[in-house]
């Protein structure tokens, strides 16, 4: 099928399947899925600029579907998502500018790549350690589908550190009744800003950094972190889609076709979260940052941006 905006010939079935897979991951883990969509679009010959912009447009649609589903389960903290969107957009803008400055200074690719590999591997290792420890300590309990009560409890072996962070009284404090916490606005903005910075550095939404940060730094229950991250992604990806579309980087027809698969996948992913407890979702999340690290390593070794 010819997509006239990008002049690309791509099988719509391929796009639907890619969208479906990313939809499931997005709905379940609260990530945008750029680390799969970008390479998948590049693999069928779409130019890099179109792959990035089109992927963002598709992420908007997929996240809308997933958020509506998560909202029905009470898994979206709108107030938190709106505040985080501000920090993410600011971080992404500064990250993109910073990368341009570092590029002029030279050797930036190697430095950023090594830092990102270290961060990804650390996130995976930490989450594996934490979720397994939490699951082991919970083992005596009965495994049951996640109810509203278990979602808010969401035990974590890292909980004592999270509670210390929550006790930092740096005004203004913001009350988040949906998440059941009160926390400094600056900490939320910082978490979002760091996620945005990585997004600016590496492209994509950097959900594999933001979602764990929401759980471990802010102390948001995992189910709520997934739903809220997706809500936040709608805002930041919409902004990204608009700016990329102005620059001529969005083939909306490709995004619409991909989204037909993603719409179903995102619903399956979002519904599936109801059958897993927080620590199990976090344990299943472990391979995602590793995939991100593998892509960076591949880019470093081959010199090709996937």
């Amino acid at each position, binding site marked *: 099928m010819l997509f*006239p*905006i990008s002049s690309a010939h791509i099988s719509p079935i391929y796009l639907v399947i890619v969208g479906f897979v990313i939809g499931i991951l997005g709905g379940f883990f609260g990530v945008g899925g750029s680390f799969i969509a970008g390479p998948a679009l590049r693999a069928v010959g779409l130019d890099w600029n179109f792959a990035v912009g089109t992927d963002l447009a598709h992420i908007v649609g997929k996240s809308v*579907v997933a958020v509506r589903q998560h909202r029905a389960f009470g898994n979206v903290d709108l107030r938190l998502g709106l505040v985080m969107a501000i920090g993410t957009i600011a971080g992404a803008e500064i990250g993109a500018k910073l990368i341009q400055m570092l590029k002029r200074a030279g050797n930036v690719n190697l430095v950023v790549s090594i830092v990102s590999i270290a961060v990804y591997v650390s996130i995976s290792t930490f989450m594996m350690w934490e979720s397994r420890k939490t699951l082991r300590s919970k083992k005596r309990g009965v495994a049951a589908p996640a109810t509203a009560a278990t979602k808010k409890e969401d035990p974590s072996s890292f909980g004592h550190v999270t509670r210390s962070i929550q006790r930092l009284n740096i005004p203004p404090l913001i009350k988040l009744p949906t998440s059941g916490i009160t926390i400094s606005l600056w900490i939320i903005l910082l978490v979002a800003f760091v996620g945005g910075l990585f997004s600016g550095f590496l492209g994509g939404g950097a959900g594999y950094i933001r979602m764990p940060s929401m759980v471990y730094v802010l102390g948001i229950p995992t189910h709520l972190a997934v739903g809220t991250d997706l809500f936040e992604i709608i805002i930041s990806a919409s902004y990204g889609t*608009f700016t990329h579309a102005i620059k*001529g980087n969005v083939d909306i*027809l490709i995004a619409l076709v991909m989204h*037909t698969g993603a719409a179903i996948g995102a619903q399956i992913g979002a519904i599936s979260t109801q059958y897993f407890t927080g620590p199990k979702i976090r344990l299943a999340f472990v391979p995602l940052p590793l995939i991100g690290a593998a892509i960076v390593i591949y880019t470093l070794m081959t010199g090709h941006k996937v």
Partner: protein
Amino acid sequence: MKKETAKTLRAFAIELVVYAALVVGYFFLVLHFLGEGLHQLEVRHRYTYAGVALLLIIGQAVILQNVTTLLLRLIRGRAG
């Protein structure tokens, strides 16, 4: 419990088949008509194109979710 799971899976499989038929129709009808118009808009009016692109993807998301929810309700209603 197993019976309920089998029922859900069967309903979901039927939904997928109906959904796939709808999507194929969508490709050939809607995208065929939208394609050239959107291409011209992208070339001539970038800002309008950016806004229309966002509206389209959000609109499609809302419509598709409603379609799948309706399908599932119909199929489950008939199966139950």
